[in-house]
């Protein structure tokens, strides 16, 4: 496969990511300057993992890797990277801890994985690099402990250049416009572009590029939206036969863009049909009776379409903000629930009733000492405190940490002892030769 055969081996073969590559090298060379771990994030196929491997070759690093392992629980993390992280690399060799897909360490199935990872980062003697698609899937306890470098979606010019290199090595004759088109359709994903290029075969003709389905399934939904907004007809349902998205996703595209486009007087009419469509989607979900999808689709397309009074001019379509918002706030919602459970436990109230205490506790944290008492009384974690008093949470934890450093002040440290590990030796202080 081209993706295997033409895996980049030098920095020059990684296209379109000069800035982040430079930043990574700088971060490594100055380590430890700020945080001891680095989070590289960005969409699929933009070169995150490849960059780490090229780095390894070019800088002659010793890799300790937690990658394709199935299990990512606390025990595995500790076993695979824990000791490696804590032991300093031998003279002249440099060690790097690499953890790919770090956003797939899950709370439930991978018990305590995130906690263990936090601990490893705190105690490491070597640089740690984390790779993730979505940084928001990480708890803030990890995000607060890392530096971040973002890999952007690749521009199609970068993809095209790489495709050209490959075509030359493979001896495939291909016109620039064709490579451009493949690159364009890939949606900024290098690996996908190379797969598509390969799937077109050895002789690429202009017509053949059209055989590729667009990676960017959004262009077909744009056509569908335009047909809803342009005409006033049930006919627009037909465009959606070719949209590669299920009805419960399509409805959110319409929901996002209809109110941006429609005259305010027509919005209620359109929402009536969206709401009816959603009722049919609910019936599909509860009864697994998929024929109702047909009604849902007709109502969300044709129904919305017949509601606008005059022809509408094109406006720029937005992807549904709802999913993005949900993704961003997922971790937060988990934290809120655990916070409410703790409050409920102390105040003999249900999770629902416990919500009533949050404004009170917010006021209680107005000053740091009040905040510390809240922290102690409910036995809260950093993220949970953040929900109560986002502005002062840092000060409160700093105060707790300072109190810990004063060994005499027992009452202050007691509460934090189990959360913060025992004081570690200052960096660089090798207390014994046999420590390795």
């Amino acid at each position: 496969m081209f993706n295997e055969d033409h895996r980049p081996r030098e920095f020059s073969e990684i296209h379109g990511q000069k800035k982040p590559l430079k930043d990574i090298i700088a971060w490594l060379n100055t380590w430890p300057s700020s945080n001891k771990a680095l989070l590289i994030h960005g969409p699929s196929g933009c070169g995150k993992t490849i960059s780490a491997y090229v780095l390894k070759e070019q800088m002659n690093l010793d890799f300790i890797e937690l990658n394709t392992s199935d299990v990512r629980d606390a025990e595995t993390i500790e076993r695979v990277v824990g000791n490696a992280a804590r032991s300093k690399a031998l003279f002249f060799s440099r060690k790097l801890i690499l953890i790919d897909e770090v956003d797939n360490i899950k709370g439930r199935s991978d018990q305590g994985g995130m906690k263990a990872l936090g601990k490893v980062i705190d105690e490491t003697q070597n640089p740690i690099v984390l790779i993730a698609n979505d940084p928001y899937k990480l708890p803030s306890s990890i995000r607060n402990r890392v530096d971040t470098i973002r890999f952007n979606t690749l521009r199609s010019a970068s993809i095209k250049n790489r495709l050209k290199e490959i075509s030359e090595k493979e001896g495939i004759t291909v016109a620039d416009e064709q490579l451009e088109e493949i690159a364009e359709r890939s949606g900024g994903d290098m690996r996908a572009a190379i797969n598509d290029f390969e799937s077109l075969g050895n002789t690429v003709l202009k017509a053949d590029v059209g055989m590729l389905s667009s990676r960017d399934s959004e262009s077909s939904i744009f056509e569908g939206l335009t047909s809803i907004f342009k005409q006033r007809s049930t006919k627009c349902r037909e465009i959606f036969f070719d949209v590669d998205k299920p009805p419960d996703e399509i409805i959110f595209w319409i929901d996002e863009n209809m109110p941006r486009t429609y005259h305010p007087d027509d919005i209620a009419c359109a929402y009536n049909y969206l709401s009816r469509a959603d009722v049919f989607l609910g019936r599909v979900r509860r009864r697994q009776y998929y024929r109702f999808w047909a009604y849902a689709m007709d109502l969300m397309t044709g129904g919305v379409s017949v509601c606008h009074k005059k022809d509408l001019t094109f406006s720029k379509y937005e992807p549904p903000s709802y999913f993005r918002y949900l993704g961003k706030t997922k971790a937060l919602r988990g934290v809120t629930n655990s916070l409410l459970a703790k409050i409920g436990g102390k105040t003999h109230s249900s999770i629902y009733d416990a919500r009533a205490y949050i404004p009170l506790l917010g006021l209680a944290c107005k000053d740091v000492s009040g905040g510390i008492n809240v922290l102690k009384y409910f036995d809260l974690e950093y993220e949970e405190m953040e929900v109560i008093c986002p502005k002062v949470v840092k000060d409160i934890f700093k105060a707790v940490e300072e109190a810990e450093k004063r060994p005499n002040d027992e009452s202050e440290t007691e509460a934090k002892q189990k959360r913060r590990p025992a004081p570690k030796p200052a960096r660089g202080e090798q207390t014994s030769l046999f420590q390795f």
Partner: protein
Amino acid sequence: MNFEKPWTEKYRPAKLDDVVGRPFIVERLKSYVERKNMPHLLFAGPAGVGKTTCALALAREMFGDSWHQNFQETNASDERGINVVRERIKDFARTMSIGGNFKIIFLDESDALTPDAQNALRRTMEIYTSTCRFILSCNYSSKIIPPIQSRCAIFRFGPLPDGAIEEKLNMIADNEKIVIKESGMEAIKYIADGDMRKAENTMQAAAFLGKDIDEDLVYQVSSRARPEEIVDMINAAISGNFLASRRLLDSLLIEKGLSGEDIITQVHRQILELELPEERKVDLIDKIGEHEFRLVEGSNERIQLEALLARLAKKQ
């Protein structure tokens, strides 16, 4: 003012005699203590009116120092299903009561259990009837199946009278060395609407802002607790700014994690407070009823709530 613990906990009565505003209920509960025996109890009433408080005080007086070993609190709506509840009850009921003839199991929000689950609960009650007494707490006694109702002595907790709230707040104020002005007291009672928990929380929050609690302070605090976003959202919708009202909806639904039912209930409550012609309000309440029904039938809460917001904007 420094936070120590919530006043609802700090001033939760340890003895039945300290419970305010419930003379008849306390009377009956004390007779159980005297006899060192009790039937199963069913406590029915809204939030914050003393159901849990009475259960805890009863257990304390019944068992003295060993009350903690003989009392178990479980919330039927939080725990995952009746099986978890039964397992917990089984574990707890297996060991002997310490210094008593029975143990007490306090099952909060029992009306969250389906009728089937309640039937299972009823069998559990029968199995452990010689070693355990149940105190079931619920909002609506009519949601409890008749076979359970008939096995329980029923206690109805209405909203607390304003006098009882005033008594308790004055006691706390004395103790905490704060001054509560008459206007402040009136404001708290109005906001609390018979809910002691809300009253105590409001006073404690106000005390963080100043030692002299007056009306202004109370409203300042309660506006923090009030769902201002709900009001903003409704107003944005009514004034025709749908996108703005949708953004507020998202923050309630997604960031704050409120359920669709929560939001529609609050919209419903706020509608009546709005500056709108009476007829319009009545009309909107009718519409909310329709959309609430769709919410139950539908798949996605957000779409249904958006449809409601769009409806609010419509003139007739």
